[in-house]
């Protein structure tokens, strides 16, 4: 067991995703057939041996609490430790991104005060990854660092807007933390911080106390300001890490799961991604089913044709329907001979007989929850 507790900011990241994240935070957006995006951060911490995790909630937190319950499915229904809900503060304007806002922690100081562990592992809740954080914790202890920032090298990122870049000396100590301003495109493959860090608990308490009067300040900004007085180190990761900022990100990263190699790195290894268990029966294929290159969750009934698609739990596809390059979330019902291409159907959508839905690869069609077509 590592000498650490975890905090996940489920309110980091803000995007509507054409309605997928309108009534739920990005952390609660369904992903990969049976998961929610938060499952990845939560499972990574649990698989790293952390059994005390505080979850900073966004303002529409009902779907998250519904999903998490007492944290049983992540082994977080502990007598000592377990899952703690840390109500987040309302930030100024919706849409302002405040990753790791100090005010959120100030309102939940007790969570940090009552534990006696040495370190706090902090992660955002809107990234898709499967990472064992023990490696970074080892680096943290070996260097006797105050703070260890987890970073990635050589990632081809298209959108630099919110990226934070690091400069490290040969001992892996961070010498500069900066955003993309003034950065040439050719430099974009330098180490960039992946919204995960390890910090000494007493130091974090100190920072929260000193900076709380400044309002909504983000932790990384405070660290940048104190770079000279703190021992801040970097720890590299080779894990697949994906961030979802647009509906295209969501679509592309979902479709990436059809690649065996991505699946192997994300969820077929020793560390599993845990999620809420619903005890569905196996998926039933009828004699009319034709399914190719697709991911299918449990509890579905499949009588139609499916190609290059992701089908969530409990979906019914009647005979003659054709599903191509689409994502169909749980409990959708597609009636006979309906067709769709490049569509994303939110939960419990019904498509009646013979309807045709068509989006484009560059602009997938999103159908809102419980729509009847």
């Amino acid at each position, binding site marked *: 067991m590592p000498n650490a507790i975890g905090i996940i900011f489920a309110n980091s990241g803000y995007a509507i995703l054409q309605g997928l994240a309108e009534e739920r935070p990005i952390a609660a957006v369904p992903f990969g057939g049976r998961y929610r995006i938060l499952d990845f951060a939560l499972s990574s911490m649990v698989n790293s041996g952390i059994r005390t995790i505080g979850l900073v909630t966004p303002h529409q937190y009902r779907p998250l609490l519904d999903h998490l319950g007492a944290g049983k499915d992540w082994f977080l229904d502990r007598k000592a430790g377990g899952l703690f809900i840390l109500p987040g503060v309302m930030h100024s304007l919706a849409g302002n991104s405040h990753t790791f806002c100090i005010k959120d922690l100030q309102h939940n100081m007790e969570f940090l005060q009552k534990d006696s562990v040495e370190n706090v592992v902090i992660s955002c809740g809107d990234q898709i990854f499967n990472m064992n954080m023990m490696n970074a914790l080892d680096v943290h202890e070996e260097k006797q660092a105050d703070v260890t920032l987890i970073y990635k090298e050589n990632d081809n990122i298209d959108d630099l807007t919110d990226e934070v870049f690091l400069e490290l000396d040969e001992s892996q100590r961070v010498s500069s933390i900066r955003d993309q301003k003034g950065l040439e495109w050719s430099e974009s493959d330098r180490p960039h911080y992946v919204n995960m860090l390890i910090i000494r608990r007493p130091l974090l308490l100190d920072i929260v106390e000193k900076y709380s009067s400044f309002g909504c300040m983000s932790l990384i900004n405070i660290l940048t300001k104190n770079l000279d007085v703190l021992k801040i180190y970097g720890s590299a990761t080779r894990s697949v890490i994906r961030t979802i900022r647009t509906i295209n990100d969501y679509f592309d990263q979902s479709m990436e799961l059809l690649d065996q190699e991505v699946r192997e790195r994300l969820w077929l290894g020793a560390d599993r991604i845990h999620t809420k268990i619903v005890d569905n029966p*196996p*998926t039933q*294929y009828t004699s009319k089913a034709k399914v*190719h290159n697709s991911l*299918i969750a449990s509890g579905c009934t499949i009588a139609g044709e499916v190609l290059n698609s*992701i089908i969530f739990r409990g979906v019914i596809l009647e005979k003659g329907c054709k599903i191509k390059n689409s994502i169909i979330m749980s409990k959708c019902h597609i009636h006979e001979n309906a067709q769709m291409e490049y569509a994303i159907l939110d939960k419990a959508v019904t498509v009646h007989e013979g309807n045709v839905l068509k989006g484009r690869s560059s602009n997938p069609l999103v159908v809102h929850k419980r729509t009847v077509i």
Partner: protein
Amino acid sequence: MKKQECVAMLLAGGQGSRLGGLTRKRAKPAVSFCGKYRIIDFSLSNCTNSNINTVGVLIQYRPFLLNSYIGLGSAWNLDNPFGGVHILPPFLGDEEGSWYNGTANAVYQNYEFIDFYDPDYVIILSGDHVYKMDYSLMLKFHKEKNSEITLATIAVPWEETSRFGMLTVDEEARITRFTEKPAHSDSNLASMGVYIFNWSTLKHALIADAGDYQSQNDFGKNIIPQQLNLGKRVFAYQFHGYWRDVGTIESYYHANMESLSDGHFLNIFDQKFRIFSNEDILPPHFVGLKAEIKNSLVCNGCIVHGMVSNSILAPGVYVGEGVTIENSILLPYVKIHAGSVILKTIVGENAEIMNNCIVGAKGVVTPDQEGITVIEDYHIIPIGSIIEAGKNVYSTRTS
């Protein structure tokens, strides 16, 4: 401790030797069924769905995998502070104690457990039947009839009456005659092996039976006939629905395959009466570009690149390219490598069939057990093997 109205005693200690290679490493109730389930899931889920939250599970034969599967019973919502699941192995006392010798003896040895909860009624269940049943309706019947012992019964086809314990009842459903596997029966009501006793009646019956050295200490063979002879109020509760004993390779195979047919009575898709299970956490299954799956059940974590028809793929199964699987049941984590053909076969858990094998090939003689081939758990079939239909393939011996 809170008094319970009804305590369930689940008989899960039998070897199940007629399931051959499937039960050499695990007790029969822990055998995989219908993809993601294990046989015991049905009895445990029935208890949960019938508001019975105190269950004693009597174990004896190879209990490790069964015990670890049951755990605290939380998968079936049975991790209840007032009751819950109790694993009851044979034990030693100062002078008494022994292996369980018959079903009645197993319950007799645990009378302290039942007394601990001070129930009015005890329901005896079998861990090797597949069915969905609301025991609370049977208990209601038991009370209405002012019955001392109630047997759950099901109508079976007349030609099969010689396989079951048959009951003859009068017009108010009181049992007048019980015959174990009769050659000719005047009734087609078979005992399902589900009994409700008044605890006081059961206690006296067990004590009397334990003193009888002629007795085989079996509920069906001894306790029920003895109590009938004593003139106790024994009633038959007729169950309407799907019920299967999966004690043999043939019945296990058919019960599994029946779940593929439309309008199946077991209806595992019915969310109102859910069957719970303690499943492994696995991602959705992946269906490859060249795969074809027809009329089959597929579970989480499977990777399918070949052709699958009329078959059941349990969690974590791998089907390589160019593989053909027909009329077969692949149990959890089975791997079938490229080019192999699997026909009418039950492949045991974690077994691996290497490239270009034919399993279930047509032989020259008429095959045994209806031509169903069985591969034992963890067995590895080497490249290019041909295994004739109806064989039982074991790791250490062939029969």
